[in-house]
């Protein structure tokens, strides 16, 4: 019982971080709470502010406003070498003039540990990453995968509270990425260190993260577990950024029995209101429907229907993606899973629909 009463300190807390470069706002009012041992992914397109946010946590950038707390302690004014963090860079940033052993031990040198202890710890860490044979090599002689391990060993040896990773597998060969991803996930679970992982690749983010933070234009659009974000995108951007969503824009109509009428150029649709406030009639809003939830050749029993023409059919093995044109230039994606034979031809006119409960209403856009 006493354990339940002990408040676990957050590993990281960001409070209303703001950072601008001249007139360009890189990070705008970003707040985040990271529980101990949590795997957090910052996801978003280039320029959305995810890397700047990461660098603020590292202390490599100084925010104009806001606070940063690591382990409950305010570190906003602290330089990087005083923070309990370690960082992995996209191109690894290995020191070219030091052997692998030397640079892996660098962090311990900075902590003024005795030489014997450093040597022993380095040997241990190299062994745990299976790179003992590389100890005397220089970075110039290493392959991409080997460099990545060295960079990781160098960061982990100091046993930081938080590990910051800036697109860590982007520089690796495609075939290597999957393996490394799983290894890093296992490492995080084993050590219990919080990972903050920045990426633009949603496959990485959703398979790795306990907490996914989607950013756009310097702001956090949505944060939650992968199920929450994938199942219920909160904004048109998040829905559009995630593969496999159809996003519809329209204006609010009547609300009745927890259902909202939405007027769009393609027609009127019924979307569940869920926990959102009833929007004023005529106000702009958006909702999304997952591509695999569409029903082929929908008849009158399906409440939401659109007339479309199939433009292309792409086969991906696990599923078949159809891209269809509708009125007003709208493009709709329909994914057919289950390795079924092709049922829609290119050029074919077809009506697709979806059950009312599969429509996900988005938050009203800020005024």
């Amino acid at each position, binding site marked *: 019982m006493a354990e339940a009463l002990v408040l676990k300190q957050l590993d990281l807390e960001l409070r209303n971080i703001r950072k601008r470069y001249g007139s360009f706002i890189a990070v705008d009012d970003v707040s985040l709470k990271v529980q101990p041992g949590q795997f957090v992914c910052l996801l978003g397109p280039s320029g959305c502010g995810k890397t700047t946010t990461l*660098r603020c946590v590292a*202390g490599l*950038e100084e925010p104009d406003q806001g606070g940063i707390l690591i382990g409950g302690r305010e570190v906003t004014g602290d330089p990087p070498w005083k923070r309990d963090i370690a960082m992995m860079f996209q191109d690894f940033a290995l020191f070219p003039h030091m052997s692998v052993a030397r640079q892996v031990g660098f962090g311990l040198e900075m902590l003024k540990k005795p030489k014997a202890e450093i040597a022993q710890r380095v040997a241990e860490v190299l062994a745990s990453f299976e790179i003992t044979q590389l100890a005397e090599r220089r970075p110039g002689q290493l392959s991409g995968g080997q460099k990545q391990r060295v960079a990781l060993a160098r960061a982990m040896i100091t046993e930081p509270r938080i590990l910051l990773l800036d697109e860590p597998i982007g520089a690796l060969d495609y075939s290597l990425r999957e393996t490394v991803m799983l290894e890093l996930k296992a490492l995080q679970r084993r050590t219990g260190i919080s990972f903050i992982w920045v990426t633009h690749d949603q496959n990485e983010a959703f398979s790795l993260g306990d907490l996914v933070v989607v950013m756009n234009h310097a702001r956090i659009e949505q944060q939650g577990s992968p199920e929450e974000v994938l199942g219920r995108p909160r904004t048109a951007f998040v829905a559009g950024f995630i593969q496999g969503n159809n996003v519809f824009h329209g204006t609010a109509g009547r609300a009745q029995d927890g259902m909202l009428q939405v007027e769009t150029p393609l027609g009127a649709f019924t979307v569940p209101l869920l926990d959102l406030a009833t929007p004023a009639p005529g106000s702009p809003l958006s909702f999304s429907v997952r591509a695999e939830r569409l029903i082929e050749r929908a008849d009158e029993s399906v409440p939401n229907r659109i007339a479309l023409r199939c433009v292309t059919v792409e086969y991906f093995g696990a599923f078949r993606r159809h891209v269809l044109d509708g009125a007003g230039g709208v493009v709709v994606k329909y994914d057919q899973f289950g390795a079924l034979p092709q049922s829609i031809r290119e050029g074919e006119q077809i009506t697709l629909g979806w059950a009312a409960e599969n429509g996900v209403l988005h938050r009203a856009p800020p005024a």
Partner: protein
Amino acid sequence: MSTIRAGSPAAFWLALPAGLWMVVAVVLPVLLIVWVSLWGGQSVSPDSPITFDNYAHFLANENYRWLILDTLGQAAMIMAITGVLGYCIAYFLTVKLTSPGWRTALFLAFVIPFWTSTLIRAIAFVPFLGVNGLLNQLLISLGLIERPIQAFLYSRLGISMAQVSLYTLLASGPVVYMLSSIPPALREAAMTLKAPPIIVFWRIILPLTLPGIVIGQVLVFLNVLADFITVTTVGGNKLAFLGNLILLFYEGSQIRSTAVVSVLLMILMLAGVAVALRVVDIRKLGS
């Protein structure tokens, strides 16, 4: 972030020593000379009145005006020769030559003389260009001429040959740098767009190397204008350019005239750099 914080006072203090050194060693002396050049009256002292008479007097002299033009003309000629020659050599070494062994060897052969004394190299032109010198002996033994050519040494030709030899590297170096930063893919892309090699060079390569050409030309310009050693060594005392005039006045204890011509020379040099900066500075060089 790096080992120096942007906008921190540490940056300012680090910059101070070099800045101070240049102010004391260059800026103050230049200002002083400008002041001296403006000293009017009879005596040469700090109490002299300020006037532009010295300049008017100097520029009124037709011989001196001709000398200025002659110096500029010499610079222009050397710039043109070293520019073309330097570009050809740069192009050959970076683009045409494929064997890395040869490239290193020729590069070294090109650059090493630069690390030896320019004074010595200038002096070495005397036995090279002389009536009994190596060049004449070579030409005679090849049967190209019957009697040695006197005009090589102690002449404008000799001076020019020496200056070309000394300064072509300056014209070539920046071009080498720019040429080697052009990705081969650009040339290939142009060729797939049906451009013949001459067009590829004229429309793609040459414009991209333009900053290098301009920098090289500026370096040659500055060096030729300020050069008086080569002129006296290889030209004997038969020719004089602006630099020599300055020394002449100095040795004649004509302080004001020395100052005037020095300032005029500097103005020419600064003008040249200013013109070049308009062309080059707009493009980012990354240096």
